[in-house]
Structures are given as structure tokens and as C-alpha cells.
């Protein structure tokens, strides 16, 4: 049982506070992704779990054991670094076996463990090479191999894919997920890429400025963002947000003059005169005849397309709604010339209302 618990963990560098007392429970075998923009404290948090940074306040425990004052080697964790950190003077085989040799395990056991890790990751052909003779993807795999050889309680990944090119990144993403399904260990994974977070995580921890903004499954964060930050960070393209004001109990008047019904989820929780942000995803604004047939409350809008981004199965449409540029989606696309007008359907039930002052979602 290797659950990881953080309670009120604080990190200060001199006067600057990088992490503001975060609480997090990670279950055994869970794949948790810490995501957020750079400087949000996600890497610092991971390094505190690894024991590479001191903890200024709070408590971290791994498998029920408080590890605050334990050095990294006594935490039974392994880590994959962004720059791989392979030992340049050792061959792949020596790199893989290093931790077991340090632990003074018998030679046959080391050989067997290295061979097993190598076969899991397809490194058999590369055993005699030095890291300098490997491609980026191969180095990445060696780094992962080095991590799994010693059967750690917890795997830590620190932006492991950000040095790879786009195609390789998608491949390795799949391999990491497969690896997790195969070995089933607890994984804590740091990234700034929301796509990686969405695709890999059992649970996403979204951080900003040293605080946790929202914790939940990828779909939780996608469908029920806690505030405008989550709404614009998760999902591609980001959620459209238009400023407005509640004019009656069930009407929002957008700043451009357009009036829209308050979505059912927020009804009764808004007060007249409240400044709000009205939010919806591109998937919920589609031209009639090019949308998904779905029951629910809809609003028709006539909008003019200013720019298109064809993606194959769908086309992103840029248009102007109440004076704000928003993105819409078109399924079964046909060629469009900018300036063309369409009748769009807005899926009201899937729209969000955020308080303008705090940014928090208004939702029942």
C-alpha cells in the first residue's frame, strides 16, 4: 500500500513562498498529474515528495510513513527527469543497473532485473551504447527503465516529454500509460501541457501560484471547471468567456448587448446586477446542420465567420459574439469563405457562469 499524503505542505525560498500549504491524498496505484503554468509550484511539490527540496512546513508521507526528514534514497521512489539525467559515462546497461548495484544486490539479480526492464521498454538492442549515442526517445526510455528496475513504491515524472518532438511525445505518452497499466504503481506526473494531463491522469491536480485550484478526474475539470482559470487552462481551444451582467433572474446581458438565458445549472444562484463571465466551449456552439443532435435547451444566433481552422473531421470557426471573438466548431465541415454567415446553435445546458470579481463558477 503506497498512498502518498501531503498535508499543509509549504515551501519558502527566503521570503518568497513558492507553495502555500497544499493538501493532497493520492491513492495506491493512482496516476495523478500535477499541471499548471510555469512557476505554479508543481515541480517544487514533486521535488519535495522526492526529497530533493526541503519542506518548509507541513507533512509528506509515503505509504503511511512520514518522510519529511528522510533523504531521497530512503523514500523508495524513482524519478524521471525532464533532461533524463542519464549517467553519461555509463552504458545503457550500467545506467539501468546502477541503483541495484548501489544497493549491493547480487549480480544475477541485477542482470535479471535489468534484462526484464530492457525487454519491457524495448532496449535490448541498445544495452552497450552510451547515452550520447541514443536518440531523444531512446534516452527517454532508458530513463524510464532506470526508474522501473528497482520496483519503487512511487514513480515521479518531472515533465518527461517536454524535450521530445510532437510526434514522439504522443508515442511516449501512450507508452507511459501502458507502463502504468503493466506495473500498476502510484505515479505522480508533472507537466505544463493540459493535453498530457487530460490523456494520462486518473486525477488531475491543477495548480496556480503555489495553490491547488481544482482536483478531479479529467472530465470533472473539463465539464465542471471551478473557475475561469481552470476553464481556460483545460481543453483546447480554451473556453470562450464573455463579460456580462445579470439583468433579471434568468437573463444575462452580455456587454455587447446580446441577451442570453441563464443556464439551468446557475439559475437561482445569481442575483440581479451581478457582474459575470459567461462561458462555453467551442463544442457547444455549432452551425445548424453541422452539429450533434442532442436534446436540451438551445439558443439560435446569427453569426459571421471571420476565420477558419480546418482540422479534418471538424473545422474551428472564429466569429464575433457580442463584441468578443469566440471560437465555434463545425462538424462534417464544408469549405467556408470568411465573411459567410451561419445560424449557430448554442447548447445552453452546457454553458457556464462565473462570478466576474472572483472568477469562481456559479453552479448548483
Amino acid at each position, binding site marked *: 500500500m503506497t498512498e502518498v499524503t501531503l498535508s499543509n505542505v509549504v515551501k519558502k525560498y527566503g521570503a518568497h513562498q513558492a507553495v502555500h500549504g497544499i493538501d493532497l491524498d493520492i491513492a495506491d496505484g493512482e496516476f495523478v498529474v500535477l499541471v499548471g503554468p510555469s512557476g505554479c509550484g508543481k515541480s517544487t511539490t514533486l521535488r519535495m515528495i*522526492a*526529497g*530533493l527540496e526541503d519542506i518548509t512546513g507541513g507533512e509528506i508521507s509515503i505509504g503511511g510513513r512520514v518522510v519529511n526528514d528522510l*533523504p*531521497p*534514497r530512503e523514500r523508495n*521512489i*524513482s*524519478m524521471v*527527469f*525532464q*533532461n*533524463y*539525467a*542519464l*549517467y*553519461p*559515462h555509463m552504458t545503457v546497461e550500467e545506467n539501468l543497473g*546502477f*541503483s541495484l548495484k*548501489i*544497493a549491493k544486490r547480487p549480480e544475477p539479480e541485477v542482470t535479471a532485473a535489468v534484462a526484464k526492464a530492457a525487454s519491457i521498454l524495448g532496449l535490448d538492442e541498445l544495452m552497450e551504447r*552510451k*547515452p*550520447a*549515442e*541514443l536518440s*531523444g526517445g531512446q*534516452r527517454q526510455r532508458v530513463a524510464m527503465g*532506470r526508474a522501473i528496475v*528497482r520496483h519503487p513504491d512511487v514513480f515521479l515524472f518531472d515533465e518527461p516529454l517536454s*524535450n521530445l518532438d510532437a510526434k514522439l511525445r504522443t508515442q511516449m505518452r501512450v507508452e507511459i500509460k501502458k507502463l502504468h497499466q503493466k506495473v500498476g504503481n502510484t505515479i505522480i506526473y508533472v507537466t505544463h501541457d493540459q493535453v498530457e494531463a487530460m490523456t494520462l491522469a486518473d486525477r488531475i491536480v491543477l495548480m496556480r501560484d503555489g495553490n491547488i485550484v481544482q482536483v478531479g478526474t479529467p472530465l470533472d475539470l473539463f465539464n465542471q471547471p471551478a473557475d475561469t482559470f481552470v476553464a481556460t487552462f483545460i481543453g483546447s481551444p480554451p473556453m470562450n468567456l464573455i463579460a456580462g451582467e445579470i439583468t433579471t433572474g434568468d437573463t444575462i446581458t452580455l456587454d455587447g448587448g446580446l441577451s442570453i438565458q441563464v443556464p439551468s445549472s446557475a439559475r437561482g444562484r445569481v442575483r440581479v446586477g451581478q457582474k459575470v463571465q459567461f462561458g462555453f466551449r467551442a463544442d457547444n456552439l455549432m452551425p445548424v446542420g453541422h452539429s450533434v443532435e442532442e436534446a436540451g435547451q438551445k439558443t439560435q444566433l446569427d453569426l459571421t465567420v471571420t476565420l477558419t481552422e480546418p482540422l479534418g473531421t471538424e473545422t474551428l470557426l472564429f466569429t464575433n459574439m457580442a463584441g468578443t471573438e469566440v471560437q465555434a466548431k463545425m462538424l462534417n465541415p464544408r469549405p467556408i469563405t470568411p465573411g459567410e454567415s451561419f445560424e449557430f446553435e448554442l447548447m445552453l445546458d452546457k454553458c457556464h457562469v462565473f462570478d466576474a470579481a472572483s472568477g469562481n463558477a456559479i453552479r448548483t
Partner: protein
Amino acid sequence: MDRNLTHRNRRRGLKVLHFLALFLVMSIICIPGLWIVVNSFRPTVEIMAKPPVWNPSFSLAHYRAMFGGAGEGGVPVFSYFRNSLIVSVVSTAIAILIGMSGGYAFARYRFRGKSNYFVGLMLFRAVPGVALSLPLFIVFARLGIIDTHFGLILVYVAMNVPFTIWLTDGFFRQIPKELHEAAEIDGCTRWQAFWKVEFPVARSGVASAAIFAFLTSWNEFALASQLTRSVGSKTMPVGLLDFTAEFTINWGGMCALAVLMIVPALILTFIVQKHLIAGLTFGGVKG
């Protein structure tokens, strides 16, 4: 067509100029050394001849005399060689040990006044060694370590440590800190992480620092000439002075001893050379 030709000609011309410049520079560096070697093998008359004799004759007379008895212009070459070797090797080893620790600390740890310390060390290098010779002489005389290996080693360690720190600091700085972090996660203590990962990776840097320190000690003359007195502690550069008398200088003998001094340094540089070429590319990390 024409344009291509002139372009090619110009490129060829540049190449020739390049070689010429290189030849000139190398001549300036090498000819004095070569002249020493040549002079050590020819009779004094030929050395002093004006205009110089360009095709030298060959004799081992100076070498024979040097290794000969005291009356025939002999000097205690073996003692000088031994002194030089002991002083240089020991002072280099100590300087590397201290300098490497210092360089590592500067590269890896944050501490108060770090940059001031560093600048201070470099300033120390700016003081000419000779300027220290009198104070050193007085202090050493009081301590009774004048004319000893120990005294000279002490001076050379002090001379070499700042430079070694500066050099190794640069090498350790190039090694990403993730390497020792990875080693620590793999089960190493901080100490093991250094010796098993960071030191082997920085080995070429440490080797070049060592060769610099060794050559500095091996060739140092100014301080050694003040702090050594007898055959028991005089190093080879100081030994060269044995060839000067009140009215004459035995150039041939001096050149012969100088050759004996250069040879070990050359051999050592040659051996260490392959470490100097940073064969270890930092392939383990992508930066």
C-alpha cells in the same frame, strides 16, 4: 563560371594565408624551445658564434659534463630531479584535492558571500609571486621550514588552489545538477553521488586542472630560488643557476638541464592529453 573561379581562388588564397599565420605563430612559440634542444647538443663555441651557425654539429659533451663530477662542471641532476618531482607531485595532489572540493562547493552550493570569496580567490592570483618572496622568506625562516620540501609544497599549494578552484568550478557547473539528484534517488548518499557520477563525468576537467598545477610547480623559479638553498631541496629550475659563475655562463650545460626538465613535462602532458580532449560528451542529458 568566371565568378566561381575567382571565388575559388580567393578561398585558396585565404587558406594559404591562414597556414602562413599559423606557421608564424607556431614558430614564435616553438623556435626558442627548439633552440634550447639544439644548443644542448653543440659545443659552446658554436652556441656563441655570431652570426649563428645554422647547421648544428652534434655532441653529448654537455650531458656528459653535467652528469660528471663536481670538478668537471657536473651538477646533482638526480637530486634536483627528485626534489622537483616530490614537490610538484605532492603539491599538485593536495591542490587538486582542495581545489576540487572548493570548485564543487562553488558550483553546487549557495552560501553567503559566495561571489566575494570567488573574486577574492581570483584577486589572490593577481599578486605576483615574487612580491611575496621576501615576506615568505622571513616567515619561513622563523618557522624553520626554509630549504625544505614542505615549505615549497606549501607555497605551491597556495599558488595552485585558486586556479584549480576556478577551473573545476567551471567543469562542475557544466554538469547538470539532475545527475547527482538522479544518483541520490537511485540510492546514493551525497558522497557516493559525487564519486560515482559527478567525479567520473568531470574527470577530464580535473585532469586538465592537475596538469596545469603540475606544470606551474614544475617550472616555478622565482620563489623556489629564494626558499631553497641546498641540494636537498633545490628544484630543477633553481638548479639551472648552478651553471652561472661569476664571469661566465655555461649555456650548453644550462640547455642540457633545461632539456631534461622539459622532457618529463612533455611526456606527462602527452599521457594526460587524451583526458584533456573532452571525450565525455554530455549525452546523458539534453540541454
